[in-house]
């Protein structure tokens, strides 16, 4: 199966994120200083369990309303005002988990108020009411490439003439259910993540994250030029051992980036096999381009990571300084891995990638002056 490539340029009118550090500016500042948001917390929150690295905006409880709603309100307050959710102003909401933690809470305490924001549709309907959006709201979810799909869908809506401006909102907040799942896979363990590092044991961290982007056809200084999507259909949780899935997706976006001087914001969660395959494929497809991952600090923000990290990248490009791969030391899976911060001048485009369970790969090309 060949990758899908959408060369549908869209202007980025506004973009910001929320992490435990704060907004994109605060997050950039912390990353440039090499700070980790990850701290060791009980994997099941108040119910205890092993201590694992989590980057949380607040205690991981299962409150009603959900703990993440105040954070989301704070982020949404910074979205430029418009008639969101009306005919020409669609909203695309993406998440990997929506309110799944609330469903788990319901199974234990039988408080049916959890159900108001547990299932994806109920969760988004609650947001629609909360933020007084109209009915033109789209919901997309595909594990950890969810935000990429939202941005690609926005580009399609704009280029099909079905919208003038699109709001893409993404969020994933860690819950005991989600942390417990990754812990049982043994990749969320008692180690801190060191993306792309050669180590005995791979470890990821999980983090809270939310972000938005307002896209249009306007000629803004930063533009999303192209999206590549690919599913290698090899295995639920493993990539093809030869890295062909990474090469297919990255090769497609490399074609769209031909002639540009790029750096790569990779996925890099801290697992060993995927980290090696990604670093090697990046070196093949983008020779000489620095590769970074920020999940050693922010943790993996799951379905939201593509847009959270886009917001940080944009802020870094405006500040002309980009964070390196926090938490990683040599040896690495490739010489292309940038460990420390570096200057943004000299590059005229950024590649941003995410990967997901099921063999899903996504990459986008951000062009800048």
């Amino acid at each position: 199966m060949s990758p899908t490539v959408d060369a549908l340029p869209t202007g980025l009118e506004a973009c910001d994120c929320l992490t435990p550090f704060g907004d994109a500016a605060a997050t950039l500042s912390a990353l440039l200083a090499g700070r980790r948001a990850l701290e060791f917390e009980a994997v099941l929150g108040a119910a205890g369990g092993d201590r694992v690295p989590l980057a949380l905006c607040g205690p991981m409880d299962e409150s009603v309303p959900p703990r993440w709603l105040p954070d989301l309100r704070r982020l949404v307050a910074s979205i430029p005002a418009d008639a969101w959710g009306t005919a020409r102003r669609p909203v695309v909401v993406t998440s990997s988990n929506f309110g799944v933690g609330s469903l788990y809470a319901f199974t234990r305490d039988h408080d049916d108020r959890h159900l108001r924001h547990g299932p994806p549709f109920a969760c988004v309907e609650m947001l629609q009411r909360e933020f007084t959006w109209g009915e033109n709201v789209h919901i997309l979810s595909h594990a950890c490439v969810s935000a990429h799909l939202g941005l690609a869908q926005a580009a399609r809506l704009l280029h099909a003439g079905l919208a003038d401006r699109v709001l893409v909102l993404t969020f994933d907040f860690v819950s005991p259910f989600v942390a417990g799942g990754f812990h049982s896979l043994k990749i969320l363990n008692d180690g801190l993540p060191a993306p792309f590092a050669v180590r005995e044991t791979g470890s990821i961290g999980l983090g809270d994250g939310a972000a938005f982007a307002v896209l249009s056809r306007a000629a803004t200084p930063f533009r999303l030029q192209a999206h590549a999507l690919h599913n290698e259909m090899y295995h639920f949780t493993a990539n093809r051992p030869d890295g062909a899935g990474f090469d297919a997706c990255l090769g497609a976006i490399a074609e769209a980036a031909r002639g540009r001087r790029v750096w790569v914001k990779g996925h890099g969660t801290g697992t060993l096999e995927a980290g090696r395959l990604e670093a090697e494929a990046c070196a093949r497809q983008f020779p000489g381009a620095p590769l970074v991952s920020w999940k050693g600090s922010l943790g993996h923000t799951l379905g939201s990571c593509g847009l959270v990290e886009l917001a940080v990248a944009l802020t870094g490009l405006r500040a002309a300084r980009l964070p390196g791969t926090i938490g990683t030391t040599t040896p690495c899976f490739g010489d292309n891995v940038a460990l420390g911060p570096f200057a943004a001048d000299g590059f005229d485009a950024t590649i941003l990638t995410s990967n997901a369970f099921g063999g899903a790969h996504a990459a986008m090309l951000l062009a800048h002056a």
Partner: protein
Amino acid sequence: MSDPLALRLKTLIVQTLRLKDVRPEDILDDEPLFGTSRFDLDSIDALELVLRLEKEFGIKIGSSEESRKALTNVATLAEYIRHRQPGHGD
């Protein structure tokens, strides 16, 4: 003489993973459990097996790399469990 722990593990593998047409005594101690067509097991099976082993033997498997090494075959799994059970001198 056969190892009682190995036999117990084989029984547990067959039961936990609901292996059809496989009897515990058919599994060789040094036979690969994963990555072959004989049992056709994948990472979801590994997850299920790890959770059962942790419960059954009161052990903690720390990482996916550790679990992969332990689950190489029945002999490596038995060795792994012996070294982590209470009272072991190591």
